[in-house]
């Protein structure tokens, strides 16, 4: 408890020091030092809890309306804190390299680093908080800090628009969460999450369902589930790379934390809640994955893949929720452990992909895949980093994405006695997950293949070069973590073990013996992955040694034509055109075509862009709202007797509907 308070103080002092009127270097140093110190302080509190110790608890008396603030850091909050803080620190280190050019400029870098401190602060407030207002305070701090981080390049109107879009969405989410807390407060007269939990456990019914739906809507907006994701591609494309990375990988995981927390508070949720979560998450994963296929902007692509990956983690939590509803220990363990592992793994590989994309942006000043190519030779470490992240995000062995998807698949195929149609439905979910994996491998191949392989496509793009150490070190740390968590998944499992057993304690038998089995299975998966790595290394080594003659070099085969230009390479648009045209009902492609005319056409062009269907629909309704109302009233004629009759009928039905519930059935 003392360590947590000290961390809050250090972070606030550090943020203040960042704003001092000194050189940018000193400000940044203040930010980094205070963050490192706070991270170390938090880790001293968190690690014992994760190793099975008692939760850190404490109380702080505070004035009305907060009342006594209770802090209770249990294994779930500890799990989220243990990686959120260090990864935010790594993001700040990356930012030093990313903003190197600004150090000697008049631009005030202190604000940016102060906001990182506030982001870390929000984690310390949200994850251990056992008090609704404290939770909201942290939630709101993260939202405002993320918004200000996104609009770093605020002179660009597009960036400001993306920022406001995000700000509006996140506050819509806040309305839902406040509504839910108001309902709960009205019943419990307390701001304690534990007393909310007591009420939720003992009052199943319509009101609990309402609270659940309000909260899920809010958390879905925070974590960018489909169809609440429309802010996400814009914000991720507009923000500096490390901000996109932290938002996608770390900050918005708070939505998933809150989801799991609510499920644990409910204790024994209804089965429909689990089905709702599974269905909602499958939809999110499938549509998020399909949207990654056609994106030209590398960071926008990665943004959509966040929607996909929160969907995958959500499938796990949905399965866990079903397990809680049906008192099935294996489902609870596989679902929650799989979901939490995926959250952890996603934080590592998604940040890594964004960092690599940011390095590309710094080197060549664009992330438009159609203009890039051949960066692997110029930026080998960045390319390796993107490749590792890409293989991991496709859920392929031997990297960490595979381990969490393995656990989630095991939950879907668990073979528990849960009824035939439930098992059929979960198997359909598994097939959808396989589809998502294939689509995600497709779009990662496209992104990596077009950007890093082949040759540079556009001579007007600057020649790439490798980044400085400040940017490479965070990428290297993430790369090592992605490999280690893949071949030694028990490391990741050690972090989620206590949080999963927290979920298991609500079951009658406490599900003893499930977790060791899961750990053994994960260790085996890690062994397989390690064997695969060794086999590849051995084959490469052997054939390099065995070949007596040196390899020859020649032009790429081009049907006998050996003077191809770089413009003749396959483009990202051509790569995805066929798949995109087959899912045109879900993924909109805007085409603007001016066809060539005459014998010597001069200005003809074709522009295609993959736009967000939800956002377009939203704006269409806003833009045409009046028009469609006018159309409707124009279509109705005032003197039509049927309208008067229908209006009277509706009035009678409403009146009857009001009278009957109040006065009982009519005699």
């Amino acid at each position, binding site marked *: 408890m003392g360590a947590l308070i000290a961390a809050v103080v250090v972070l606030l002092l550090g943020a203040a020091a960042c704003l001092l009127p000194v050189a940018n270097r000193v400000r940044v140093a203040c930010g980094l030092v205070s963050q490192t110190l706070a991270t170390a302080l938090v880790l001293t509190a968190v690690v014992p809890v994760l190793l099975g110790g008692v939760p850190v608890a404490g109380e702080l008396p505070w004035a009305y309306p907060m009342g006594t603030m209770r802090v209770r850091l249990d294994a779930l909050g500890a799990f989220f804190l243990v990686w959120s803080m260090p990864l935010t620190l790594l993001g700040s280190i990356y930012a030093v390299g990313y903003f190197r050019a600004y150090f000697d400029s008049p631009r005030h870098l202190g604000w940016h680093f102060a906001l990182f401190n506030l982001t870390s602060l929000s984690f310390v407030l949200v994850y251990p908080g056992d008090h609704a207002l404290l939770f909201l305070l942290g939630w709101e701090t993260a939202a405002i800090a993320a918004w200000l981080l996104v609009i770093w390049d605020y002179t660009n109107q597009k960036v400001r628009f993306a920022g406001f879009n995000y700000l509006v969405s996140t506050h819509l989410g806040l309305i839902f969460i406040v509504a839910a807390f108001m309902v709960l407060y009205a019943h419990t007269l307390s701001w304690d999450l534990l007393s909310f939990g007591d009420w939720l456990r003992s009052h199943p019914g319509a009101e609990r369902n309402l609270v659940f739906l309000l909260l899920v809507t809010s958390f879905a907006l925070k974590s960018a589930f489909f169809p609440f994701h429309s802010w996400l591609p814009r914000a991720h494309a507009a923000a500096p790379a490390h901000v996109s990375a932290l938002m996608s990988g770390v900050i918005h995981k708070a939505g998933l934390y809150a989801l799991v927390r609510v499920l644990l508070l409910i204790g024994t949720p209804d089965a429909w809640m689990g089905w709702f979560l599974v269905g909602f998450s499958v939809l999110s994963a499938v549509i998020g994955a399909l949207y990654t296929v056609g994106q030209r902007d590398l960071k926008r692509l990665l943004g959509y893949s966040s929607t996909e990956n929160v969907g995958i983690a959500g499938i796990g939590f949905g399965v866990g929720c079903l397990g809680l509803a049906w008192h099935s220990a294996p489902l609870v363990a596989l679902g929650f452990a799989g979901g939490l592992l995926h959250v952890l793994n996603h934080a590592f590989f998604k940040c890594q992909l964004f960092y690599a994309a940011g390095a590309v942006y710094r080197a060549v000043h664009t992330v438009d895949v159609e203009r890039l190519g051949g960066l692997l030779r110029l930026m080998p470490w960045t390319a390796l980093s993107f490749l590792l992240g890409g293989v991991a995000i496709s859920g392929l062995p031997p990297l960490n994405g595979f381990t969490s998807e393995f656990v989630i698949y095991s939950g879907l195929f668990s073979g528990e006695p849960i009824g035939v149609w439930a098992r059929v439905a979960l198997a359909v979910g598994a097939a959808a997950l396989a589809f998502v994996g294939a689509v995600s491998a497709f779009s990662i191949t496209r992104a990596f293949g077009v950007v890093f392989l082949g040759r540079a496509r556009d001579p007007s793009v600057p020649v790439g070069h490798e980044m400085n150490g400040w940017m490479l070190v965070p990428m290297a740390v993430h790369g090592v973590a992605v490999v280690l968590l893949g071949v030694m998944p028990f490391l990741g499992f050690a972090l989620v073990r206590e949080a999963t057993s927290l979920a298991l304690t609500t079951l009658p038998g406490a599900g003893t013996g499930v977790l060791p089995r899961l750990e053994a299975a994960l260790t085996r998966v890690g062994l397989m992955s390690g064997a695969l790595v060794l086999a590849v290394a051995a084959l490469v080594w052997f054939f390099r040694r065995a070949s*007596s003659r040196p390899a020859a070099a020649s032009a*790429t085969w081009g049907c006998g034509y050996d003077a191809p230009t770089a413009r003749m390479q*396959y483009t990202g648009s051509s790569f995805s055109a066929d798949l995109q045209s087959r899912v045109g009902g879900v993924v909109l492609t805007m085409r603007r075509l001016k066809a060539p005319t005459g014998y010597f056409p001069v200005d003809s062009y074709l522009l295609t862009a993959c736009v967000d269907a939800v956002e377009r629909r939203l704006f269409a309704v806003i833009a045409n709202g009046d028009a469609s109302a006018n159309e409707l009233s124009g279509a109705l004629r005032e003197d039509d007797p049927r309208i008067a009759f229908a209006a009277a009928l509706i009035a009678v039905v409403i009146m009857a509907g009001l009278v009957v519930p109040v006065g009982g059935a009519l005699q």
Partner: protein
Amino acid sequence: MSALLGAVHIAIALTMPVLLVGIVNRTKARSAGRKGPGLAQLAWDLRRLLMKAPVYSTTSSPLFAAGAWVVLAASLLAALVAPILGDSAPLRFDYDFILFAYALGLARLFLMLSAMDVGSAFEGMGAAREGLFTVAIEPALFFLIGAATLATGQASFAGLLGQWHHATSFPWLAVPAVAVLFALLQAEAARLPVDDPQTHLELTMVHEVMLLDHSGPGLAAMQYAAALKMTIYAGLIASLVNPFDLRGNPAPAVLFALVTMVGVGVAVGCVESLIARMRLRAVPGYLVLASLTAAACLGVAGWLSRMP
């Protein structure tokens, strides 16, 4: 006993690819009135390739050279997990089918990436098609596994396929399940009507076009991996229809598996002799149809296991 079975499995998995390609080619030759190459022709081809020095495109990066070995290693791992004899596999554990599917996925990713690495439009086109076909067919395997889970209650790949024939749903589902696995074989091993391994027009190739710039040992690895994938899927069909208990009567079970795999090879050859490849735009539809058939299998398996 199980060690012996594992050794037999590995021996068959390693040698059968050569034989199976020979059988397919021999069948096609016979039906065209030719004598055809020897059954072990692929082995001689591989030997010749292994002794050559590779030629790399000037555009390619180190990833290109490593790609072929990733493809081979991942396919070998999948071959160790896949049950080809019946209710047994050298690597067998709960939910091993996920490792199977995703190891093949890794192989495919590196196949596609090394195709993109040489900067050729043809190879990019082939990679895009391969990716699209996978998207269409990938759910099929998991639908089938879902059906097998309902029928058998097993959790390992070997148990699911090897014990399905005990279930009441088997007589109803055997034919569609074999059909789905056959479509998977055509898609994964790049056979007609999905892909024509003997076409010589770059614009219409899928798998072969991605190998255009591979040479020497790398090309050998890629060709062997493709043949291995055909063996794996032929083996999956064999273990699905194998009526013998591998632990009770190992000899007839292994013999039956071998005969079935040869039969699948003959069937592939017959299909390739009788029909032309599909129009490329129609192929995803064919594969989606296979996925939907597998989904229907899952539904029927659910409906049948609902009744006691």
